[in-house]
């Protein structure tokens, strides 16, 4: 891997010819992928690690986000001397298709010169994984030392050995599930309806006009609650009032928790495309790895020789421990080597994105990078 190879480095973007056949029928061609790589691909190409991101995250896992200037979203996990050690591994993180950070999605301009909008095909988690495989082909990576992801990234990580059993040696799935529950789908539907009820949404054809900011902000507010725990919210906000001595007897953000959620909603609109939110939440709702394998989850893992590590958090009610346990049972039934630990954290689903020495220790141990 030569230093001036334009395929490697931060803030990469490639247009691959495809075509990428899609689970929902039809295909995507070309396929645009925005990605970053860290570290050096070994001469035997045996040290590649793929990081899969969550719903609203991006390819900037360990490099600064050029738009916000903020550091990568998982720098405590990925970097020099970290559990996913970029001094040892060649790490790839790609923006999923359907998203809006540079990979093909509804905001991408189609062959007619107009943004796809709602004519973008509905995609699945497995489609995202197949797009990642196209990128790895482009990078000359046949086999992954490991694929790692949390939340929706964990769904992709689980799909990897099921879709490409011979291309992955180890799988780390954090705070995730093998299928979306009725409750998961229900929360996503609230978000989508909020977007589509915004008059600015215009059937998805809002590019060049005002965006459906109010709808997307409400969607984010509802979703954000699901990422936290009740105890965490109580500890952080309680019933405390926001910059006032008494209740206003009106509908301003009297409570700190209201003010916080409103801010989260508004900040999200600045960085995320509403249509992408519809497409990616749909892909998550459609995810049911057992269904893709004759209704038996164990069948998803019978072809692979990969090792697995699963981590859940005790206050995560979005993807609770029992979801991880059912994956563990299926892996046991398939005879796959699997480790599992439930970690304690007050932070709910969000815990996987925060610095957790316990999580770091387990991942480092599993990857063999523990000092």
């Amino acid at each position: 891997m030569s230093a001036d190879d334009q395929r490697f480095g931060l803030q990469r973007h490639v247009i691959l010819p495809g075509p990428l056949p899609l689970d929902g029928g039809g295909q995507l061609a070309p396929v645009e992928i925005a990605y970053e790589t860290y570290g050096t691909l070994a001469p035997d190409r045996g040290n590649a690690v793929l990081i899969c991101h969550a719903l609203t995250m991006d390819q900037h896992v360990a490099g600064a986000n050029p738009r916000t200037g903020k550091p990568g979203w998982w720098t405590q996990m990925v970097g020099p001397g970290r559990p996913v050690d970029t001094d040892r591994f060649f790490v790839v993180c790609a923006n999923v298709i359907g998203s809006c950070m540079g990979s093909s999605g509804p905001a991408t301009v189609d062959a007619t010169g107009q943004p796809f909008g709602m004519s973008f095909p509905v995609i699945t988690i497995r489609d995202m994984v197949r797009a990642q495989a196209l990128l790895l082909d482009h990078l000359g990576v046949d086999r992954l030392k490991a694929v790692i992801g949390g939340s929706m990234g964990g769904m992709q990580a689980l799909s990897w050995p099921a879709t490409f059993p011979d291309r992955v040696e180890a799988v780390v799935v954090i705070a995730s599930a093998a299928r979306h529950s009725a409750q998961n789908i229900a929360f996503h539907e609230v978000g989508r309806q909020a977007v589509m009820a915004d008059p600015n949404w215009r059937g998805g054809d809002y590019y060049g006009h005002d965006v459906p900011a109010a709808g997307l902000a409400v969607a984010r507010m509802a979703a954000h609650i699901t990422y936290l725990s009740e105890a965490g919210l109580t500890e952080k906000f309680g019933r405390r009032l926001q910059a006032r001595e008494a209740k206003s007897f009106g509908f301003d953000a009297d409570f700190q928790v209201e003010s916080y959620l409103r801010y989260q909603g508004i900040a999200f609109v600045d960085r995320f495309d509403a249509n992408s939110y519809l497409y990616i939440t749909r892909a998550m709702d459609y995810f049911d790895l057992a269904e893709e394998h004759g209704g038996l989850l164990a069948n998803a893992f019978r072809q692979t020789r990969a090792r697995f590590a699963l981590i859940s958090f005790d206050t995560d009610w979005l993807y609770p421990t029992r979801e991880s346990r059912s994956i563990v049972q299926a892996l046991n039934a398939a005879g796959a080597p699997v480790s599992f630990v439930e970690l304690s954290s007050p932070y709910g689903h969000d815990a996987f994105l925060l610095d957790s020495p316990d999580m770091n220790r387990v991942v480092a141990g599993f990857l063999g990078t523990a000092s």
Partner: protein
Amino acid sequence: MTLRADLAIIADHVAPGSRVLDVGCGDGALMAALRDSKQADARGLELDPRNVGAAVGRGLSVIQGDADIDLSGYPDASFDYAILSQTLQTCRAPDAVLGQLLRIGRHAFVSFPNFAHWRVRLSLLWGGRMPVTRLLPERWYDTPNIHHLTVDDFRAHLHERGITVEGAWFLSGDKQTRSAAANVLAEHAIFLLRGTDRASSVLHGNIS
């Protein structure tokens, strides 16, 4: 690193290349020994997340779980050996756990501290207090050992259930002691039992 005496006996009697499930595997010391000296495919189940983390750090496959709850998910006869070392007496339903062990393993090792050891007897007889000994160091209110048993209790239980004993070892300190007086002299007992799966009789000829 030297293994605890009961674990060393188990490790010595596991056939090379076996598939092993260590229930209550702690930090994975026995699993690591079986992997390194017997080329075993070892898997573990452990309640304490810190121990799970330590075992995973050794490159072992360990699942955080509870023997009383999580053994039901393992398929029948999916391991050559299921091991329950120093854990039986901490289970809420040790008889059910034993049944699961014999269902999952073609053979099962079970080791436990003997509550009829003479020191325990003396302590209770003369002191009138629940014994606190080297092997049973906790007091009555903080001990994880909620189902104390003796060698003879276990033998009787096996007899009642028609479970076949394939081997038994008894330890006083780190030394082995006679089987006949084990109920008095043994601090530790280790039993090798035959699994309930029919196929176990095939492998049986290969060990011993």
